[in-house]
């Protein structure tokens, strides 16, 4: 073996790979075809099966569920559903519009929905969205505490005829149309069940766009969507959409700046830069979520509501949002922001900044002794906000030693569940569907997995149950009363409602956010 040979082999290898990758990159688009590219985080492209999807804008481009939530009115409106009717909020009859087909031409029928839902609700499939089917009758049989499930289908989902679906719940849920708007409840064609892993990579949906090319595979950072000609809803404008995945929004924003991308989410400090750089091509997106400081109610030091009120009053939300977040956020005056239907009320009395009152309340409660530890999970924004909160608590309450601790998500949540966290914890909670009920339910219902404070109020539970039974208008009022009640109990104090941004290049227009903040792909206009 000679040196020359070794070098020669290396050079050859480089040349070969250069050729092979050169071929795949920069595939030209035919003349006259309207196309644009959009950046998303890798999380958006983790899975594309309805039962595993994360309800991202890509999911909504590929699938259209029974309903959608109208971004302007905040109401659930019919999509594939012709009508959704109920008398008691327990038994529901869904009529399906005729003429809808999957990308492979298969008819979208009641059976398509039933198949999809059964697959997700069936525990051994281990689809991540399985938990969403808990309100359905028959869920328990498919998800026994141990052993194999005795059934393979939900008894609460009944195909009456190809156009009619009958849904039975275990208890009333007036907000079902909102729930059904998530891609977890989208239909699946027969072809999917021959090869579920294959379907997850390259799903056949019923949405305005279909997946082009290979689809998802390990190491794929880019998928192409092509306009689906047979779509029955509002068709998209672009013929082709290139979806690129990034580790975080900052990376995709950098590509947007460099002109390699047309639409990108913007978060954190990049918003300030984007506001200056993109001006009117930056859309402010209020997220249907809240960032809050939760109190460990199992910790004796926080059992007195006055202590919790003192903490709540000692935090200067305005300044945190203005200085730290550069105005991209909504200082919380209540649980939910105006972007969440039913939200926007100033239901948090203790959320006003009042250091004097805070000190007085703490003194009344017997003062504070010893160190204070604040917790959150690893996230750049959380960490910075938590540190600011710590500084304010130290300054305004006179607590000497305030430390902060961050843990990975997979450590923090189990520790919270085991009540091993010994201080207030800063967390993010997004509404599962666009309704105040969702947020209140997730945070305060005793059995909810995301009720981390241990809040337990029969009065609250009663109001929520009433709301679930009531009609939509009445339900809203009841939910708001429940939220106010919880806020008075103050198991947690909201800090702010996060605001993100969507920035876009001059090549596109009509960029508007969907419920989770990402751009509605079918609404983007090219040129």
């Amino acid at each position: 073996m000679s040196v020359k040979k070794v070098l020669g082999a290396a050079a050859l290898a480089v040349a070969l790979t250069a050729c092979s990758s050169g071929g795949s990159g920069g595939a030209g688009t035919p003349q006259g075809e309207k196309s644009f590219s959009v950046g998303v985080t890798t999380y958006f492209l983790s899975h594309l099966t309805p039962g595993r999807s994360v309800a991202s804008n890509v999911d909504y481009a590929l699938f259209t569920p029974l309903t959608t939530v109208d971004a302007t009115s905040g109401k659930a409106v019919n999509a594939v559903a012709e009508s959704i009717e109920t008398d008691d909020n327990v038994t529901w009859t869904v009529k399906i519009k005729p003429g809808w087909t999957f990308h492979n031409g298969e008819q979208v029928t009641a059976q398509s929905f039933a198949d999809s839902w059964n697959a997700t609700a069936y525990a051994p499939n281990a689809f991540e969205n399985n938990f969403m089917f808990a309100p359905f009758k028959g869920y328990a049989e498919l998800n026994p505490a141990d052993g194999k499930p005795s059934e393979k289908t939900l008894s609460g989902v009944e195909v009456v005829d190809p156009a009619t679906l009958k849904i039975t719940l275990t208890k009333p849920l007036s907000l079902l149309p909102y729930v059904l708007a998530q891609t977890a409840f989208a239909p699946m064609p027969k072809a999917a069940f021959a090869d579920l892993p294959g379907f997850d990579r390259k799903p056949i949906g019923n949405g305005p766009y279909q997946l082009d090319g290979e689809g998802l595979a390990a190491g794929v950072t880019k998928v192409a969507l092509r306009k689906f000609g047979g779509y029955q809803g509002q068709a998209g404008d672009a013929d082709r959409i290139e979806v690129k995945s990034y580790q975080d929004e900052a990376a995709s924003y950098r590509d947007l700046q460099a002109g390699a991308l047309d639409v990108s989410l913007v978060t954190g400090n990049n918003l300030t830069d984007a506001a200056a750089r993109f001006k009117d091509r930056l859309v402010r997106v209020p997220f249907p979520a809240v960032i809050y400081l939760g109190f460990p109610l199992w910790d004796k030091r926080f059992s007195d509501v006055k202590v919790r009120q003192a903490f709540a009053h000692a935090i200067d939300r305005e300044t945190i949002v203005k200085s730290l977040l550069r105005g991209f956020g909504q200082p919380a005056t209540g649980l939910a922001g105006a972007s969440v239907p039913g939200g926007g009320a100033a239901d948090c009395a203790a959320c006003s900044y009042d250091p004097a009152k805070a000190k007085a309340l703490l003194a009344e409660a017997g003062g504070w002794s010893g160190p204070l530890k604040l917790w959150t999970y690893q996230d750049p924004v959380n960490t910075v906000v938590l540190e600011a909160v710590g500084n304010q608590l130290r300054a305004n309450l006179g607590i000497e030693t305030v430390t902060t601790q961050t843990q990975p998500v997979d450590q923090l949540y189990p520790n919270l569940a085991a009540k091993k966290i010994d201080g207030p914890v800063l967390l993010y909670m997004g509404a599962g569907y666009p309704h105040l009920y969702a947020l209140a339910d997730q945070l305060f219902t005793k059995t909810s997995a995301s009720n981390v404070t241990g809040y337990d109020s029969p009065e609250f539970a009663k109001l929520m149950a009433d709301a679930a039974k009531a009609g939509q208008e009445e339900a809203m009022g009841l939910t708001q009363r429940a939220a106010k009640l919880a806020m008075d109990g103050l198991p947690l104090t909201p800090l702010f409602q996060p605001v993100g941004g969507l920035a876009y290049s001059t090549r596109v227009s009509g960029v508007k956010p969907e419920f989770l903040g990402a751009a509605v792909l079918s609404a983007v206009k090219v040129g």
Partner: protein
Amino acid sequence: MASSTLASASAEAPPAARPGLLAKLRRRPAFAISSAIALVVCAMAAVPQAFAGWFGGGDPRKCDLVNSGLPPAPGHPFGFDIQGCDLYSNVVYGARSSVLIALLVTAGMIVVAVVLGSLAGYFRGWVDAVISRVMDVFFGFPALVGMIVLLQAASTHNEWTVSAVLILFGWPVLARVMRGSVLETATGEYVAAARGVGAGTARILLRHVLPNALGPVAVLTGLNVGGVIASESALTFLGVGLQTPAISWGVQLNTAQQYFVTSPHLLIFPSIFLTVTVLSFVLLGDSLRDAFDPRLRQEVARP
């Protein structure tokens, strides 16, 4: 016929005493500058309060969010960090964890490397085989990946855990050099002589082998200090090292990366301090090595 030579005839007189190492070092400007900087950094670490107050600020914890991310202003030469604290005093206090970690890691690595390196080099045979293979594992394994895994696993992130991880992945380089030099020394004639007069293993190791084998390791460790400080900041930057409210350059840089575009001074000032510190330690190590043992250049090249 044993031909005597002039050299042997006059060799009794020692060659005009080796010019003092210190004198030799002092003549190098790189040494003078780098050791001065290193001393200042160490002083900062020991008594930050003496430096922090120079411009009127002084308390790194005195923060006002209103000033969040503001650029340099009178009395605040480096501006304010994102929490509205005086950045200058924070950067000064940041020296502490860097220096502490550098000390801990250096000490730890020397201990581990000396123990394992001597065992392998002195006893050879299977002891050497096992220790050498373990070293191979650590050499081949992408150290950064290993460190991330372990630090993810650690439930606390302070100077001690970060140091422990850095030691774990840093010792093999030193141990290999130690092993080599013990191997060389242990075959030396005076060791054979010591063994000949019946000295015990422990005595031979401690009295004869170690003192002679330690030199290269000590110098190499000196070279390493800059790298340790840089590694700490890299780990912290990745979010697995130190965490707020710890004050460290890595933490400051980690926070600053999000604000790089709008508040570049948050990145620039800690970077300058970090760079200058690492540089001074690297240069210091360089000069020490050149002065003490030019032979080591080869060893460093072939760890």
